[in-house]
């Protein structure tokens, strides 16, 4: 079985013929060798010097405490460590402390790296599972047909709009609301009604979060109340215009609308108390009970 990578694969212990492979192998193995030497010094307090000439005749060396001191000691055939003055002992202690800190830092980074690798494996499994489901839109872009690309693009643009609106709202949540107590709120509402949709949604959410007074509350609540009734009342109006005798049917038709309004209030006003609800309903009834003149006065 031929492996895709050379991990955990035994190789023939002879000089490599491929020149570029030889360079890469040298670089990796030299690094690994120095790593082992460093660990040996840390764990056992040994002094080590390693000198390696690369295939390009460059020299790489590792030493602890340093290459020159170890080599000098070896060449001079000095069996004992050189007599250390207080200054040298102090430097030795400081060096060991620095190395210890670096080793701790290295350990931290390595553990974080291991965590990220686990995460990578999990995400990889998720991707493979998704691919098994056969969702073509998650394939690379180069594998899709033109019609698929265009449909996908449209859907993605819609998602982009929603995400942009949500992001801007998230930002606005941290900005003071200039609409609090301002009468221009209605004007803004009217203007946005005619232009486009997304800001309307945004403004509506802001209004729901406002500390509104009675006037603002009533103003806002009238609109949803009349969103549904227009159909029924419109029919009644037409009947009234053409057949006057049908005026007696006004009361039976009125009840279903009232029920719808109550349900709507319950859904939209979860924290509303009883008096507000009654007042709201009463206002609606009076709109139809009083002459147009009173209605104009109210507005």
């Amino acid at each position, binding site marked *: 079985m031929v492996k895709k990578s050379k991990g955990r694969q035994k190789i023939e*212990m002879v*000089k*490599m013929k491929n020149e570029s492979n030889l360079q890469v192998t*040298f670089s990796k*193995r030299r690094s690994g*060798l120095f790593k082992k030497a*460093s*660990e040996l010094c840390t*764990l*056992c*307090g*040994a*002094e080590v*010097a*390693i000198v390696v*000439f690369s*295939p390009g005749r460059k*020299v790489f*060396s590792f*030493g602890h405490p340093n*290459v020159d001191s170890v*080599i000098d*000691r*070896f*060449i001079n055939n000095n069996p*004992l460590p050189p007599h250390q003055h207080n200054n040298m002992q102090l430097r030795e202690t400081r*060096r060991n402390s620095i190395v210890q800190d*670096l080793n701790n830092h290295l350990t931290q*980074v390595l553990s974080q*790296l291991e965590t990220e*690798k686990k995460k990578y494996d999990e995400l990889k499994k998720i991707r493979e599972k*998704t691919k098994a489901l056969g*969702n*073509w*839109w*998650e394939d690379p*872009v180069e594998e899709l*047909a033109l*019609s698929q690309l265009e449909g*996908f*693009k449209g*859907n993605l643009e819609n*998602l982009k709009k929603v*995400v942009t609106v949500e*992001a801007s709202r998230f930002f606005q949540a941290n900005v003071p609301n200039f609409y609090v107590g301002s009468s221009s709120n209605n004007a803004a509402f009217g203007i946005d009604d005619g232009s486009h949709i997304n800001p309307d949604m945004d403004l509506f959410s802001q209004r729901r979060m406002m500390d509104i007074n009675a006037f603002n509350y009533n103003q806002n609540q009238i609109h949803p109340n009349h*969103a549904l009734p227009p159909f029924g009342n419109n029919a009644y*109006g037409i009947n*009234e*215009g053409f057949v*006057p005798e049908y*005026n007696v049917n*006004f009361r039976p038709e009125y009840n279903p609308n009232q029920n719808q309004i109550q349900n709507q209030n319950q859904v939209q006003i979860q924290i509303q108390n009883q008096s507000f609800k009654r007042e709201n309903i*009463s*206002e609606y*009834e*009076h709109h139809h009970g009083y*002459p*147009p003149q*009173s209605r104009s*006065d109210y507005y």
Partner: protein
Amino acid sequence: MKRKMKLSLIENSVSRKTTFTKRKKGMTKKLTELVTLCGVEACAVVYSPFNSIPEAWPSREGVEDVVSKFMELSVLDRTKKMVDQETFISQRIAKEKEQLQKLRDENHNSQIRELMFGCLKGETNVYNLDGRDLQDLSLYIDKYLNGLTRRIEILIENGESSSSLPLPIVANAAAPVGFDGPMFQYHNQNQQKPVQFQYQALYDFYDQIPKKIHGFNMNMNKDSNQSMVLDLNQNLNDGEDEGIPCMDNNNYHPEIDCLATVTTAPTDVCAPNITNDL
């Protein structure tokens, strides 16, 4: 099972000595492999705290040969690639950090991609995300859209260069049902907003009709018989019974006269209205 070793001096003297012996052997083995595989020259000198005589690899004479070559080089060449433990560990930390950052970025991209497809399929709700995720998702969608756009342009150019017949066929091809389902559901969510907007328009339209209707109604009451007037009175009475009289009257009749007459007799409230209208 392999145990994670702490990178610090081993406290136990016996354990330290044993580890030294094992690891020294392993290190020299790696040095041998390096020399064999790459056909290079190398040497190693190891001083042990436990032994005053140093270990030399491959041999004392071999070390002396390599060291003499080493010394023949200029100081610059010798020190260019020379590292001590401090320098080596620092370099290693930098390398590992770079690798860590690269892997983190890759993981983050994978997560955002899963998030995007989750939103498209309707499995994830955009409104549950926080600000940072929204911004990252927005950037990723931009990148992906650019890729899609470029791909579409390439296909269109290829289509134009060939005969015009294949292009309509490709354009008419229907997308798989499996994909349309979730996306169609998501598309409906967008459609809800126009519907609400239409409600607003309908309300504006309705707002104008009642005035005309009521005016017409009043005119009929003037010309027709008494029964029509009685119907109007009934409506008024029902309205009063349903609500709180004072508050409602305040809302609809700012005049002081109406407020004063409420306590005397209910029927009097109707009379002034009719008089005003007449």
